[in-house]
Every structure is written in C-alpha cells, then in structure tokens.
C-alpha cells in the first residue's frame, strides 16, 4: 500500500514521466489487461467509482494510446495520426493507476495470476480483460504472407499501418483502383469499412479523380447505415464507388494485385485492403475464455463476468455480443463502466446494479465535411440475462450533414478524455 501511495505521489508532482518504471506489485485488487477504449476506461472508472480506494494495475505494451476512430481520416489525408495519439500520463498521474508497459502472455484463472512477457507475474482479486481483436489472416489464402511482406495492409488497428496505407494511396496513379474487402459480420467497427471507402473516394475526387473505389463485401448488404452510405456514394461520387455485396475474399495474390472471390471472378486492384475475419484477441483465445465458437468471449451481461472463469471480466470487441450491440469504441467504453461499477460493488460487498444501461453513438464521415451517425440505448433485460436495444429509441441520421461532422470531432475529444482521464478544461 505504501509503495502505491508513493507512486501516486510521484505522479501528482509531475515526476511520473522521468521516474523509473513502476515496480510490478506482487498482486493488485484489480488488474486490467489492455489500454484501449475498454481497458483504459475500466481502469479509470474503478478508481473513480471506488473513490480511489481500489488499487488498479493496467498492463499495456504500447507507449501511447492510438485511437481507431478518426483513423480513416488519416487515410483521406485530412487528419494526422499524431492528432489521434494520446498519452497514458493522466491515468498514472491524476488517477493513481499503475501502468505496466509489458504484454500479458498468460492467464491462470485458477490461481488468479497473470504472467507477463518479461516473465514476471501478478496476482489479482479481479481481472479485466480487454484484449481487442485478432485479425485471422490465415482465413484468406496468401494474406498472412502478403501482410508480413508489407504489401497488403490491414490498417484496422490504427498505427504505423495507417500511415503505410496512406502512402500506398498517395503513390497510386490517377485512374487506379482501391479495393477494400469486408469480412462477414461481426467485425470491429461495423460502419468503418464503408466510411473508409467514402473518405478514400473524397481523397480521390480531390487528388486523382479518374480513380475508383471498389467495395467487396462478404455480407448481403452494407452492415451499418446502408441507405446513408449508398446515398453518399451515389450522390457524392457517381461512377467512382462501386459496391459489390456477397463478395467474400478467400485468397490474395499480392504480386498480381488480385483478390480471389468465392464463386466469382478474381478482382484486380492497385491498392488492396483485405480485412480478414476477426476474433477476440489471442490472449483470450489462448486462455480458454473465447468460449463462443472459439472466437468470442461469452459474458454474463449484468457485470461482464466471463462465463468461463470466476473474477474475470471481459470487455469490448472481444465479447460475444448481445442483440444489436456493435463492436465499437463507444460500446467498449460503456461495457467498461458497467463492469467497473460491478467490480467496485463486489469488492465492497454491496449489491451489483440490477439495471445497467449502455449507450452507443458511432459517427462516420462520408466526405471531408459531412458525417452520419447510428445511435442506440441498451437496457438489461433480467428475464433473458442480456442487453436489448430499448424499443423506440436509437436510429440513424435523417441525412448526411455538416453539424454531425462537428459532433464527431467533439465526440472524439470527449470520449478520449473520459477513457484516459484527461482534464476536461484544457
């Protein structure tokens, strides 16, 4: 306890950045694996809701938080990756969270210990696992090799690949073709591929207007906001964006620049962005927590506790979703707050909230100045032990508009601050 208070003190004095890395405690009341929208929010809200009484260790190997929301605009050339890159300093300095910059490599749910890549281990009373997704490259023949070679980029986890894909788009000659292949639902960020197609088209319209965007969708229709995206393609980019439903990518040939499509002819493109099927992050799968078809993690929705292990709470894109629940940053942030409140209640010996509520709003840009949204509110239905969208609530934009582009930018600022514990006034 003393060591933790000393660390908190150092953070409060602004010394965290130059202090030695925190010593890994032998155990913590709450260990959080993952510093994305789910994990960071959970760490922050366990501290907030326990009035700083519960100690939290967050394990995240990346030096900084990089937001996936907004990263399609980096591909379009209207935002910089630096604008989406934020510090974890407020979580350590303002909120007293111990951040261990290491990767969790194994979970022993019976002994309640997490082993790190460095070989150290830490015990927990409660574990929060927010591992994000793993891209299943091997589901598309040739894709892993093409990705390892740097020829076919995913850029579905924002970071260096986002910049590399931007460079491929910049290098593409006018009159070229950009093809994005979308896996069967569910996948991370349902509107994301369609937003990507839209804002890349906006870039082409500006910089190389004879080029084309080809959307190869394994699904029967656009998965999110279909009417709004299709109206944008038709009206903003006539002849430029082509949408092909029921086009499932099953192989790639990077040298020839082709995608093999199930039951269809091969498709050639100058820049290929083939998104493979996704599943829960590898640690969840390897720990036996991905107990829904070995792909997603089943949870008890009242507290996001794993159905496979005691005192393990799984959040965000990694879970087997409830009806109408998107795999989104906003939803991961919402999961985290329900789980954090339940964990604080359980550690305090009081009843867990019987009526948790989740909200979700996903904004998508359709060009540089216009955005659309999908929103929903989800209530816990005890009789069915799941969340359901509240009937009569939720919906999408009436039409694309400029006001929602401003809201999208403000949403990002506010959810980043909420997730990372940033001071609101600066």
């Amino acid at each position, binding site marked *: 306890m003393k060591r933790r208070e000393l660390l908190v003190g150092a953070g409060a004095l602004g010394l965290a950045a130059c202090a030695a890395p925190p010593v890994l405690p032998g155990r913590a009341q709450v260990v959080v694996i993952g510093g994305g929208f789910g994990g960071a929010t959970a760490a922050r809200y366990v501290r907030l809701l326990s009035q700083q009484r519960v100690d939290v260790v967050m394990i995240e190997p990346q030096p900084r938080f990089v937001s996936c929301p907004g990263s399609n605009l980096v591909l379009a050339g209207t935002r910089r990756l630096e604008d989406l890159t934020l510090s974890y300093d407020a979580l350590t300095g303002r909120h007293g969270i111990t951040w261990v910059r290491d990767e969790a490599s194994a979970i022993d749910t019976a002994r309640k210990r997490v082993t790190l890549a460095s070989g150290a281990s830490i015990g927990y009373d409660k574990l929060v696992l927010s591992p994000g997704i793993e891209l299943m490259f091997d589901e598309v023949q040739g894709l892993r090799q093409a990705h390892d070679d740097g020829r076919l980029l995913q850029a579905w986890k924002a970071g260096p690949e986002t910049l590399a894909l931007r460079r491929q788009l910049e290098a593409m000659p006018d009159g070229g073709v950009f093809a994005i292949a979308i896996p069967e639902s569910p996948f991370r960020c349902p509107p994301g591929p369609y937003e990507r197609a839209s804002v890349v088209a906006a870039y082409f319209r500006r910089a190389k207007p004879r080029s084309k965007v080809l959307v190869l969708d394994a699904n029967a229709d656009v998965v999110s906001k279909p009417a709004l995206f299709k109206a944008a393609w038709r009206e903003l980019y006539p002849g430029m964006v082509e949408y092909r439903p029921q086009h499932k990518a099953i192989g790639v040939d990077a040298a020839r620049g082709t995608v093999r499509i199930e039951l269809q002819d091969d498709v050639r493109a100058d820049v290929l962005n083939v998104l493979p099927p996704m599943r829960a992050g590898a640690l969840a799968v390897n720990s036996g927590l991905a107990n829904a078809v070995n792909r997603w993690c089943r949870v008890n929705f009242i507290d996001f506790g794993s159905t496979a292990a005691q005192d393990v709470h799984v959040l965000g894109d990694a879970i087997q979703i409830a009806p109408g629940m998107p795999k989104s940053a906003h939803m991961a942030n919402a999961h985290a707050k329900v789980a954090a409140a339940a964990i604080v209640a359980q550690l305090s010996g009081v009843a867990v909230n019987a009526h948790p509520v989740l909200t979700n709003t996903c904004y998508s840009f359709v060009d540089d100045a216009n955005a659309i949204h999908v929103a929903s509110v989800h209530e816990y239905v005890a009789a069915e032990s799941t969340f359901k969208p509240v009937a009569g*609530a939720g919906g999408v934009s009436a039409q694309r508009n400029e006001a929602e582009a401003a809201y999208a930018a403000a949403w990002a600022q506010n959810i980043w*601050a909420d997730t990372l514990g940033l001071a*609101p006034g600066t």
Partner: protein
Amino acid sequence: MTSLHFGTAAWLALALAGAARAQSTADALQLRSLAATCAACHGTDGRAVAGAAMPALQGRSRDELLAQLNALRDGSRPSTVMQQIARGYTPAQLAQLAAYFAAPAP
C-alpha cells in the same frame, strides 16, 4: 437474559446501520453509473472538453436540464442524436440524471 437481549438489539442496530450504508453505497454507484452513460459524449460527470460542440451538463439547473431532456425526448427541441438517445431512458431516469448533474460535482 437482559444483557443478552440488549446485545442482540445492539447487534441488530449495527447490522441495520451496515445494511443502510451498503444500500446507500449501492444506490450511489447505480446513480453514478447511470450518469456515466452520458460521459462519452458530454464528458466525465458531465464536464465536457472545453470548446466541444456537445454542451457540458455539470452544474446546470435541474429544472432546465429536465426541461431540455424532455423537449429532446418528445422532439419539440430538434436534434440529430439526442432524441434517439433520450427515448432510451425512462422519465424517472431522466429526472435522476437532471438531479445528478445539477448537484455539486462528486
């Protein structure tokens, strides 16, 4: 016998006080969790990032907040997102939210 009786009563009183405390802790957690559903767009505890297009909620009058939420809910105040969100909450939840954000910051 008397002392035993007294002991039981004292224990019961303590237990009841503990139960009341636990109930108030659970209620406070539930209220703060409900308010946290607004935070992704309007800032933690309703304190929005300076200059953001979405308004801060913290410290506004309860009556004004509730009137706005009801107007958004029934559509008399036009909105892009908020009508769709406000309809997801019961009138009782909206009243709780208005009271929470009007109260001094926790």
